[in-house]
């Protein structure tokens, strides 16, 4: 397979471009996505290529333009709505939860909402407390939504294409921390499955379950631990709702230990949900207490060293796993 080096940003852009080319009902709307080329330059050049009808700048009114996207989806279009970052999504929460997630039910099955909402998410760019949120668990709480987390370049490249085929609203989390990160992906990378978690690295000693910013950090930690004789199985959840539990339950049944790593705050995070399922379904496979490394429960600090200290880093993962292995 031919591999090419690509930034996460470029992978996102190629995904959007392919979606626009595939289906003329697809259009992108969001703040500064057109003339400015996107707040993070993800849609740079797309206005010139596809025109103002398909690359649409919108006013600073999250509730308004997400509502417009819902209407367009109900009317048969395939909108990609960019809410610049998850931090502003609170302003659109009523539209997302009370309309997008609920209309199929409220209409007695007559009106589905095939909408994709993209959001930059997470910390790592010194944007301080109000602009550094990791709110995947908020959205994963809501029935009626499909919640995706693109923790790798191939998912950044391919999740959107599959999400647009969903009959139901999809929240797609992208990670601003990774935008400039270069990784190799297959030159023919395309649509990715959005139903199954993925084993990113095989191991027999412990299952590390993560998503988003946690994936590469976990793989880095697993590499280091491998040189110390500990084989970590790294599972990228990818789909936070509906969660694919079979993959991690099977892994825990093999390794008998589990650690969850996530940037989101600890209380009520994805780790809590993963652990509940492990305890409900494979309790008798456990050979060690479950452990989680989550965001420290503080407003995310601005200074770089404090920001780094507020979420798990790969060295934290290494030392936690060593402890869990009794080393």
């Amino acid at each position: 397979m031919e591999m090419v080096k690509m930034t996460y940003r470029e992978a996102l852009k190629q995904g959007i471009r392919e979606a626009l080319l595939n289906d003329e009902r697809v259009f992108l709307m969001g703040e500064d996505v057109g003339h400015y080329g996107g707040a993070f330059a993800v849609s740079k050049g797309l206005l010139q290529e596809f025109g103002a009808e398909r690359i649409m700048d919108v006013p600073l009114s999250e509730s308004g333009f997400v509502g417009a996207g819902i209407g367009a989806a109900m009317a048969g279009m395939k909108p990609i709505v960019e809410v610049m970052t998850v931090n502003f999504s609170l302003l659109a929460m009523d539209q997302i939860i009370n309309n997008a997630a609920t209309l199929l039910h409220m209409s007695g099955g007559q009106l589905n909402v095939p909408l994709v909402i993209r959001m930059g998410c997470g910390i790592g760019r010194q944007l301080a407390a109000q602009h550094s949120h990791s709110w995947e668990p908020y959205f994963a709480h809501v029935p009626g939504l499909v919640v995706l987390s693109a923790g790798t370049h191939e998912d950044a490249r391919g999740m959107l294409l599959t999400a647009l085929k969903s009959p139901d609203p999809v929240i797609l989390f992208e990670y601003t921390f990774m935008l400039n990160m270069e990784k190799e992906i297959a030159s023919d990378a395309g649509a990715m499955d959005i139903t199954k978690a993925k084993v990113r690295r095989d191991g027999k000693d412990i299952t590390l379950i993560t998503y988003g910013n946690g994936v590469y950090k976990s793989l880095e930690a697993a590499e280091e631990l491998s040189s110390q004789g500990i084989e970590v199985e790294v599972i990228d959840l990818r789909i936070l709702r509906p969660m694919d539990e079979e993959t991690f339950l099977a892994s825990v049944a093999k390794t008998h230990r589990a650690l969850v790593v996530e940037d989101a705050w600890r209380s009520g995070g994805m780790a809590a949900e993963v652990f509940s399922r492990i305890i409900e379904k494979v309790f008798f496979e456990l050979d060690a207490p479950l452990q989680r490394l989550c965001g420290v429960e503080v407003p995310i600090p601005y200074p770089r060293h404090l920001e780094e200290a507020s979420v798990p880093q790969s060295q934290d993962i290494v030392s936690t796993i060593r402890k869990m292995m009794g080393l």
Partner: protein
Amino acid sequence: MIEFKMPSLGADMEDGTLVEWRKKPGDQVKRGDILADVDTQKGLIEIEVFDEGVIDTLLLEEGVKVPVGTIMAIIRPLGEVTEEKDIPSAISSEEPEKSEEVPAKTSEEKEERRVKITPLAKRIALENNLDYSVINGTGPEGAIVKKDVEKALAEAVGPSKEMGGFTEKADEAIVEVKKEHKTPPIKAIRTAVAAAMSKSNREIPHYYLEKKIDMTRALEWLTETNSGLPVQKRILPAALFIKSVASSLVDVPELNAEWEDELVIKNEINIGFVVSLRSGGIVVPSLKNADLKSVGEIMEWLNDIIPRSRSFNLRSSELSGSTVTITNLGEGGADKVFGIVYPPQVAIIGLGSVAEEPFAKKGMVGIHPMLYVTLSGDHRATDGLVGSRFLAAMDKHLQNPQAL
């Protein structure tokens, strides 16, 4: 069935190491029999049994350290075993049945005493009919993990030759342990004293009282009594002091008590008597029901207990259960001693040396043998007035020694 548990041999004792079983399953035991040797910070202690019956199961392996309260053995009350005594031949044929019962029972015990075992390890153990209560855990917080169960299973099915090797080694190890710990290291005693005294000083607001007591009559009485006794039965002042403390506690029971967020007065008067060790440190044997014993009996107890305390040859019951403590400096040392209360007790009585002093009595200054008695009390439990009444009672009793 009677559960025999790791006893607490003092407020500071959290755990003990089983060094040796003195009985084996099937042995008949009665109250007072020594069941096991247990190593504690206070040294190697013989643990007594307080029930009558037959040892059913020994749940602990020698060399294992367990917290206070852990069930060590199961004792069958006597009534249930008469048949076996009559028909010894029946024992062997019944044995397989019994050994099948035992794991089931012990796993119930385990539930009660919360053995830390991971769900996986427990499942494997149950699937293999392995009694996991005796496995040493190496996992987090000492939990038994899969690896430990697998090791135990491998040893259980291993060749008998190997098993023999193991037990031999274990025996050797125990002998060594005994030699080493018969006299516990000074450091361990120091640590135990440090822990108890720090706890006391941290938690107990002390008040201190002292009283000078004229010993003229008491010493006269002693001289008179001893003149009619053989040398080995002669009574030392300490025995009289202990008796007078016991009698004074009958008068002022508030000081024979424990503080458990409220004053809990004890029915028995068990006096802890501090014995100093030549190598440093102290041990505090307990004189049970001191108020019911005569001065002569107390002297016998002292003659027996002091040398045994100094050689660490004490039974568990002889170290526990004190309701009050006496520290006695004896002759020729400091005039007075202000003790630190040993929690959860609420008082410690300090006896200084008896020395001649000018003392005014009935308008006359004379030379009298004087004893300084002090009382350190827990001010949460009692007030100075109570302590003062106690010291007055001491004085009263020592002025009237023949009544003791």
